[in-house]
């Protein structure tokens, strides 16, 4: 299946990629998506994960067409 991946802020710079369409096996978690999309870099421990713009944890299973986003701790306001 295919999922859309997005990286934000310092993580986008570290991974060197803003977004990508990633081909992955039928059963995959958000963490698996990271591995497929981040070029082998291990996921830093404080990374936040959102699937379809909702916070979730890395073990959440993703579905075809999901938008999976990875970003560092937020610093707005």
């Amino acid at each position, binding site marked *: 299946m295919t999922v859309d991946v997005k990286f*934000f802020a310092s993580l986008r710079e570290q991974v060197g990629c803003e977004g990508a369409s990633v081909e992955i096996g039928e059963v995959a978690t958000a963490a698996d998506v990271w591995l497929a999309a981040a070029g082998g870099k291990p996921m830093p421990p404080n990374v936040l994960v959102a699937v379809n*713009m909702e916070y979730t944890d890395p073990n959440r299973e993703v579905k075809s067409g999901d938008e999976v986003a990875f970003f560092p701790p*937020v610093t*707005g306001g």
Partner: protein
Amino acid sequence: MGVRVEIRSGALSPWEELAGHEQAKTKLKGRIGAAGVFVGTMRDFNEASDVTAMHLEHYPGMTETHLQRICAEAGERWELLDTLVVHRVGDLLPAEPIVLVAVWSEHRKDAFEACRFIMEDLKSKAPFWKKETLTDGSTRWVEKNTAGY
């Protein structure tokens, strides 16, 4: 209860914004007893360094949805008449307002508590990221927000 959430790349003048927002709310005239307001402003100093500029990034779509949800949750927990959140993105200079949170209610307890609740949730969960430019031209991502309680 009314809720308006806006992500804005242009300038934010919080007091003008509030005057304009209130003027449009003719139905609430005479019902409002309290307004609780918070304005967050860019400082020229952070973590032992002079800061000359800032870039604010967000996650278009998720940021707005998340802020709408915070405001809806505040409206369930407190008796609110109206809520306004405006947050800057893009390039900012020191002394420019970054965020405006305003809550209107009949009684002051609701306005105080809901305003702070929205602001703390925004700080800890709304997807925004700050990148600072220092005096020597170098840039750095702000790593985390300070605790508010």
